[in-house]
Each structure stands twice: as structure tokens, then as C-alpha cells.
């Protein structure tokens, strides 16, 4: 059984497109990445799965249950972190956490206490007096205290300091070991690369890639800079070609032997071959024409 499965999930806001014919699936105990430019439809996808908005067409299931028919049952087993955590003003942290537990009809006091300690969260403060990062921590406790089987996390580490980010991913991996599944929407590509097994890329409402992260990030590619020439070597498989007066750079994805023999023919004065910046690899998906699958 897939933990999340969508079939041609479509949402239009009147005439404006939200998402179109989205087909993705997430397996159990997977950490699944979800990335895309601003306005691509990430939030729309998540809010549709959670029942905040209703789909225009298509359907989706979570834990094998239909998101429209069995919404309440599904939500009892999901931990959700929105990208911007907003709570009721003038409530104290422990009151918000308790309210969330009560709405789940569970006694989570022990878990909550542990999590608050782990993330160094002062439970006596009022939520509207907290910094962004601390509000995020409240959000973490609310999402994790009832130990759900699925975590839907929308930019969870934004606002967290590096130590807290590390603690957060430790927590994620713990829950994964215990059988939990994570759906992680993030702009931090290094997070996706480091922690996710598979990832989907959405752009202009459509899924443009869905694959193992190692395939998507194309770690066999190499960033090559040649000094002393400004023409490109006679090779195929070159991307992101940039030339200036005395140098040329490009991304090479082919056979290393071919590259070396071609470079050998050129009057170069200097050369660097490095692993490309992660962003450069993913940016390739963010830019350019959309070809629908």
C-alpha cells in the first residue's frame, strides 16, 4: 500500500491553475522530497491532501483511504508543519501544544515534554512573543507529539538555527526507523539531497520529474572550466555553457575519457574540474521550458 497516492489530482482556483494532473506516490518509511519554484503548486498539493481545499478533479488516497471520504481518520495519523506557523494570539506555548493534543484526543504530555526539552523551547511564553524560529519549534512539537505515521512538512527548517536543524533531522530519521513516512517540501536543495530517497519536482502546476534523488541530482556530472580558450570542445552532453574572453565553462555529463581526449587537443593554460553546485543541477529543472510528462 502506498502511503500517499494521487491520480490526476487537479485544482483550479476559478480559472487560475493550481495543480494539473498530478500523479505521484510515496512509499512507507520513505523520506520523499517535493521541490519546485515559487507558485509552482507545492502548497496547493499539500493543502489538497490535507482537506483544506477540495480538488477540482482527480483523486488521492493516504494510507489507502480516500482523502475526501475519510479525511478525519487520515488527519488523526498525520503530523503537519505549515510553512508559516500561526497560532492563537495570547495563548502560551504549553496551551497551544495541549490544545493540539486535545484535538487529537490523545495524551501527549510525555512526548511533548521530551520534544520541548530536545528543541530548547520555553513553554511558558506567549506564542505571539516568540521569534519565527521558536514558533517553528512549537509547530514541530505539535506535528510530532502524537507520533503519527505520516509527516507532511512544508519548509520545516526555515528559521531554525543549524543546531536545531541537525536535531530536527535526527528526529526525522528516528521516526523513519520506527516506520514513519515523511513528505518534505523544501527550497533547501542540500536537505533534499542529503535526506530524501526520492523526490518530485513540480513546475507551473505539473510534475516534471519524479525519481530517485541520486538520478535527479546527476552526481556524475562535472563542472569544467578551461582557461586559455574560448571555444567549446567538440563534445555532446554539454550544458550551461558560458564563454568569456579567455575561458569557457560547462557542465559535462558524458564519458570522462572522451572529455580528456578532447581537452588534450585544445591549447589550454589552466583547467578545473569539480562537482557542480547542487543548486546548478536542480536549477536546470527550475528554468527553461516545461515539457509535460
Amino acid at each position: 500500500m502506498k502511503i500517499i497516492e494521487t491520480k490526476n489530482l487537479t485544482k483550479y482556483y476559478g480559472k487560475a491553475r493550481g495543480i494539473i494532473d498530478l500523479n505521484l506516490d510515496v512509499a512507507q518509511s520513505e523520506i520523499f522530497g517535493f521541490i519546485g519554484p515559487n507558485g509552482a503548486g507545492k502548497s496547493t498539493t499539500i493543502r489538497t491532501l490535507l482537506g483544506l481545499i477540495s480538488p477540482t478533479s482527480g483523486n488521492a488516497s493516504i494510507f489507502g483511504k480516500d482523502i475526501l471520504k475519510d479525511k478525519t481518520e487520515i488527519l488523526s495519523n498525520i503530523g503537519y508543519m505549515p510553512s508559516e506557523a500561526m497560532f492563537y494570539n495570547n495563548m502560551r506555548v504549553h496551551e497551544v501544544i495541549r490544545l493540539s493534543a486535545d484535538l487529537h484526543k490523545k495524551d501527549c504530555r510525555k512526548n511533548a515534554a521530551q520534544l520541548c526539552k530536545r528543541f530548547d523551547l520555553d513553554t511558558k511564553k506567549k506564542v505571539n512573543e516568540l521569534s519565527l524560529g521558536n514558533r517553528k519549534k512549537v509547530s514541530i512539537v505539535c506535528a510530532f507529539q502524537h507520533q503519527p505515521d505520516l509527516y507532511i512538512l512544508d519548509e520545516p527548517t526555515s528559521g531554525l538555527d543549524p543546531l536545531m536543524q541537525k536535531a530536527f533531522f535526527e528526529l526525522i530519521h528516528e521516526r523513519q526507523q520506527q516506520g514513519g513516512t515523511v513528505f518534505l517540501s523544501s527550497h533547501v536543495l542540500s536537505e533534499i539531497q542529503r535526506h530524501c530517497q526520492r523526490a518530485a519536482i513540480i513546475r507551473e502546476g505539473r510534475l516534471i520529474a519524479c525519481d530517485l534523488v541520486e538520478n535527479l541530482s546527476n552526481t556524475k556530472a562535472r563542472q569544467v572550466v578551461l582557461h586559455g580558450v574560448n571555444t567549446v570542445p567538440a563534445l555532446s552532453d554539454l550544458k550551461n555553457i558560458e564563454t568569456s574572453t579567455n575561458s569557457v565553462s560547462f557542465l559535462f555529463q558524458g564519458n570522462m575519457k572522451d572529455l580528456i581526449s578532447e581537452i588534450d587537443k585544445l591549447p589550454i593554460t589552466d583547467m578545473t574540474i569539480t562537482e557542480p553546485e547542487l543548486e546548478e543541477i536542480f536549477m536546470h529543472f527550475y528554468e527553461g521550458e516545461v515539457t509535460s510528462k
Partner: protein
Amino acid sequence: MTILIHELKRNRISFLIWTISIAFMLFICMIMYPEMKTSMNSVTDMFANMGGFTEAFGMDQVNFGEVMGFYAIECGNILGIGGGFFAALLGIGILSKEEKERTAEFLLTHPIRRSSVIFQKLLAVLLQLLIMNLVLTAASAASFALIGETLAMKEFLLLHTAYLVLQLEIACICFGISAFIRQSGLGVGLGLAAILYFANIIGNINSSGEFIKYITPFAYAEASDIISSASIEMPLMLLGCLYGIAGIVAAFIKYMRKDIAA
């Protein structure tokens, strides 16, 4: 009933301020009665002969100089305006504030049915109005005792019942509106209550405004009518209840399937 309790807690200060303020005003009015009674006769005649103004406030039907007549005019207005505005305030915000204050995402991603959310919020509104009116009834009765007057029990209870129903009706109509909006709506709510109040006054003065009594709850909750006839115009009150129920139904239908804004 987590949400019900949450709503009551969140609103407790507003509830206390309104309840205490209205109770205080009722008290002050009644405290002034004994003094007013002694200088009454000339005043009564004056009030009874101010033409349109007299009719507008129903002062042609009751004797302002008698305690029940005085109570009807003074306190009827306080209960009607104060209570009506508080009812509108409660009803117009309770659903829309979740989206206005961006807490809807937090609340509605928990495992509760939307119908339960709507029901508990409705209950919170109705309960606060019920409790407030019980307190105000008791406070008024106490004020009678304090100034040494006896109240006509039947008329007194009918009056308070009518004003309770008025408040419930206004609250439920505003509750229905609340399901459709995503911002404050305070202006709409208070505006509605004000229009209903003034419509009744106009209807009282203008003889061609007969139809107005079918629209505004201030027509059946007309203190002077109730006191003088010792009865409430039931058909009008039932019509008012119908308007209230329509508001509740509209809220359920709309909010159950509403797309919640980010």
C-alpha cells in the same frame, strides 16, 4: 467539546466586559427611577405628547411614570442595543476570524469534522448569549428589589425572553454571514444590528411601514408592546426564529465545503 471550551476561554474577557457593562447600565437606570418618579407627572405628559418621537419609542403605550413602563422604555433599549450589538459581534466573527487571523490551517488540519467545528462554535455563541441574559435578568430583578419596587413577573419574563430571542436571531444571521467572509466583518455585523434597530423605529412612526415588522426582530421584541399587552406577537417571533435557522443552515452548507484560504 474541545473547541467549545477553547472558544469560551478565548472570549471570556470580552464576554465579561459586555455583560458587566450592560448590567451596570440597567442598574444605573433603575437606580434613577425613584427620583424620577417623584417629579414624574409633568414629565409623563410631556413624553406622551411628543408626537412621532413618542410613537417611535413606544412611549404612547406605557406609562413612563410607572415602574414597568419605565423599565420597558429604558431597559428595553439597553437590552436591545447592547445585547443586539454583542450578539452581532459574536456571530459575525466566530467563523471568519480563523481565516482572518490565519489560524484556520492549524485548527482544520486536526482530526475533527468541519461539521463539528461549526456546531461547537455555534454552541459557543448561543451559550454566551444565554448566560449573559440569565445574568442580566437576575441583575435587573435585583435592581427592582433594591429600589423597593415590585416587578410584574409575567411581563418581566416575557420581555427578557423576547430580547433573548432577538439576540439569538441576530447572532445566527451573523453566524451565517461569517461562513462566507474571510475578514473581520465587524462593520457588516454591527451595521446589520443598527439597521434592524432603526428600521423598527421608522416602522413605528410611519404607518406605511407595516411590512417592516416582518423583517426586524426589534418589532416583536418591542418592550412597550410586551408590557402593555403582557404578550409577545408569536407569529413575528417565530418568523424571527426562522431567519435565525436560515442563518445556521447557510453557515453549515457553506463552511462544510469552503476552500480555506492560506
